[in-house]
């Protein structure tokens, strides 16, 4: 491709400069400032002078350690078990809050597993951040196929020559027209554990067998509910993008395929999909980026709960930066988020690079 482009430095720079200058001023510069903040103890408002503290914020966020805890033993040296037969262990706080291990001060249990009779406990300085990281990654992992694939199916569905198809396209796009804040408010009613619409519909469909579920109040279902709602809201957005990609495929290809007697699946695989290449890259990258920025739904619906089940990285950024006035902490999370997403997008670009 590069060899076919004509070289023209002046025109190239001339065309790109206005756009690049604006982005540099209003996005890149502030982000660089945010990065500088992360290396200081900058507060939102404070009379204290700002000090440079290097990587302390990063250490506070990312410090992790593994403890091996031996079971409690009674006077005879036998392992103490509780009524259910489970081994009793001393509480983690007796270790982290004792004076013997100052390096573990302030750390909390993240998760644990059994190793023989001992318990291996992973403790972290900032468990909420770790949970936010995990939830954000899970969210991205599920939303990309759900939203991207769902949008493609919708686009294929809409790309038919039927009377009134445009009405359907408009309707499918409807959720995108409403702000995500509004959608979150509406869906909060739908997900309500006591009398919500979803519970009532499922109850009716299953003839009363279905027990009402507290969708947003249950740690197992909260994140899934948010994923479903987010996909629902944005799938029309990506349907439009897929559609504009589908429109660029010349119909002659389809005619040739029809003439040669190709089945629907073969047509899709050999005519449609290759022509969607660039669009697919766009959709994949955009969904991933937007997924990492998950914030508004959490803010309106669950506030990060229950028990951090819906905690996300951007939510933590806002909570720390604005809520707790710790701009440097919020910026640190942002920089880490940026690096993670950069790594993932580089991998994505490598996997989907154009092979000339």
């Amino acid at each position, binding site marked *: 491709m590069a060899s076919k482009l004509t070289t023209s430095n002046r025109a190239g720079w001339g065309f790109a400069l206005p756009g690049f200058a604006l982005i540099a001023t209003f996005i890149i510069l502030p982000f660089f400032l945010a990065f500088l903040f992360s290396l200081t*103890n*900058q*507060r*939102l*408002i*404070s*009379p*204290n*002078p*700002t000090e440079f503290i290097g990587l302390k914020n990063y250490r506070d966020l990312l410090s992790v350690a593994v403890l091996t805890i031996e079971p409690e033993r009674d006077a005879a040296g036998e392992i103490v078990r509780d009524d259910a037969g489970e081994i009793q262990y001393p*509480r*983690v*706080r007796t270790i982290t*809050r004792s004076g013997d291990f100052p390096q573990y001060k*302030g750390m*909390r*249990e993240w998760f644990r597993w059994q190793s023989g009779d001992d318990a291996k406990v992973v403790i972290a300085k900032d*468990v909420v951040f770790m949970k936010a990281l995990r939830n954000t990654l899970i969210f991205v992992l599920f939303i990309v196929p759900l939203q991207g694939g769902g949008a493609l199916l919708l686009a294929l569905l809409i790309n038919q020559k039927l009377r009134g198809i445009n009405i359907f396209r408009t309707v499918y796009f409807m959720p995108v027209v409403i702000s995500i804040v509004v959608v979150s408010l509406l869906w*909060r*009613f739908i997900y*309500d*554990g*006591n*009398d*919500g619409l979803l519970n009532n519909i499922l109850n009716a469909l299953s003839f009363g067998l279905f027990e009402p579920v*507290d969708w*947003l*109040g249950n*740690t197992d279902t909260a994140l899934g509910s948010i994923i479903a709602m987010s996909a629902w809201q944005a799938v029309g957005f990506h349907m439009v993008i897929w559609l504009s990609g589908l429109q660029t495929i010349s119909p002659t290809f389809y005619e040739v395929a029809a003439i040669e007697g190709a089945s629907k699946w073969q047509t899709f695989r050999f005519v449609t999909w290759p022509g969607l290449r660039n669009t697919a890259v766009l959709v994949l990258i955009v969904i991933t980026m937007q997924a990492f920025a998950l914030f508004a739904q959490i803010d309106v619906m*669950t*506030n*990060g*709960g*229950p*028990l*951090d089940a819906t905690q996300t990285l951007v939510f933590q950024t806002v*909570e720390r930066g*604005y*809520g*707790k*006035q*710790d701009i440097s902490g919020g910026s640190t999370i942002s920089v880490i988020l940026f690096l993670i997403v950069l790594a993932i997008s580089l991998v994505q670009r490598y996997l989907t690079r154009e092979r000339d």
Partner: protein
Amino acid sequence: MKLKKTFTAALMATTAIGGAAAAQTELALWYHGAGNEVEGKIINQIIDEFNASQSDYKVMIESFPQLSYNDSVVAAALAGNLPCILDTDGPNMPNWAWSGYMQPLPIDEAEFANFLPGTKGIYDGKLYSIGLWDAAVALYARQSTLDELGLRTPTLAEPWTGEEFMAALDAAKASGKYDYALDLGMNDQGEWYPYAFSPFLQSFGGDIVDRSAYQTAEGALNGDAALEFGAWWQKLFAEGYAPGTSEDPADQQTGFIDGSFAFQWNGNWRAVATMAEVDDVLFLPAPDFGNGNTIGAGSWQFGVTTSCAAPDGATAFIEYALQDKYLAAFSDALGLIPSTASAAQMTENYKEGGPLAVFYDLSAEQALIRPVTPGYVVEAKVFIKALADIANGADVADTLDAAVDEIDADIEANGGYGH
């Protein structure tokens, strides 16, 4: 930070020069009540009458929605764009004063000696803000419910003990008539939590932070009293006495009125509306869990910013607004407690024998304001999360320890917040 301070100083200087030259100084006032029509009417009336009463100053109001008011103010502070007169939520004032955005009010102490303690925003020994009303929280109940369940009616002098309270909840739960025995409004994970629930913690003997020096929360938030509180708190939700954090926000508004809840722990700003719908509603005092019972205090208050060009004018306006007739007007409109006893006599609800008169005494005697420290902003957030987590089943001791650790780390990171 330094650059911004120089900028702010420059801004102050230029506006001061500009102010002296003008015949009538304009004072900007920011208020948190956009969208609230009754509040808007009264505050506009006060402003119009003040402007008409003298010709040196002209107050201009800009209203903000309450939801995002604090964020707007902090952002304006960063940008050096604060108004002269600022409306602030009581517990936030120390933080803004410490950050250098508010200046002490030059009002003589004698003038506000008879104001309710919760309406006085005193930080570092000086008065920074003063409020036209105070708010309180009470246990909403119906007389008929108490009669049906055979419960004693608690009074200010003889409130329910912790056991009596739980017995009442048990009776309500056993009757089967209610979705939940008690509604705490858990869906509102904002300033409501510390305001409404820290009194319970205090009644057990704990507190959000150690108030002797405000340097640590150790012992206050994770001591034995706090652990007892935590266990009780968790029980309320684990055993189905109250709806949890996933409560539908609409339920908090209509649940007591339509009988889904037997009792509701709610602010007196909803009292007037509830009285209109429920004939025999009672406003009962908080139960005493062993360490006395307290209620929250401190609501919206007026203060003056450091960047104000004419602090005298600003103070004149604030003093004008504190006249009894205006305090009474706000009280009648919002149902909140007027700041002075004399104003209370002029109101519908708080005069002698009025339906909410008990609140005035409650506020005067039992109000405990939230911790007066710049660190409160962070402490509130940490407290909210701890309470929400405990309600959702997290381990009480670990959660409270984590909260204490976070608060302590924050206090240290801010050099002790100037205490």
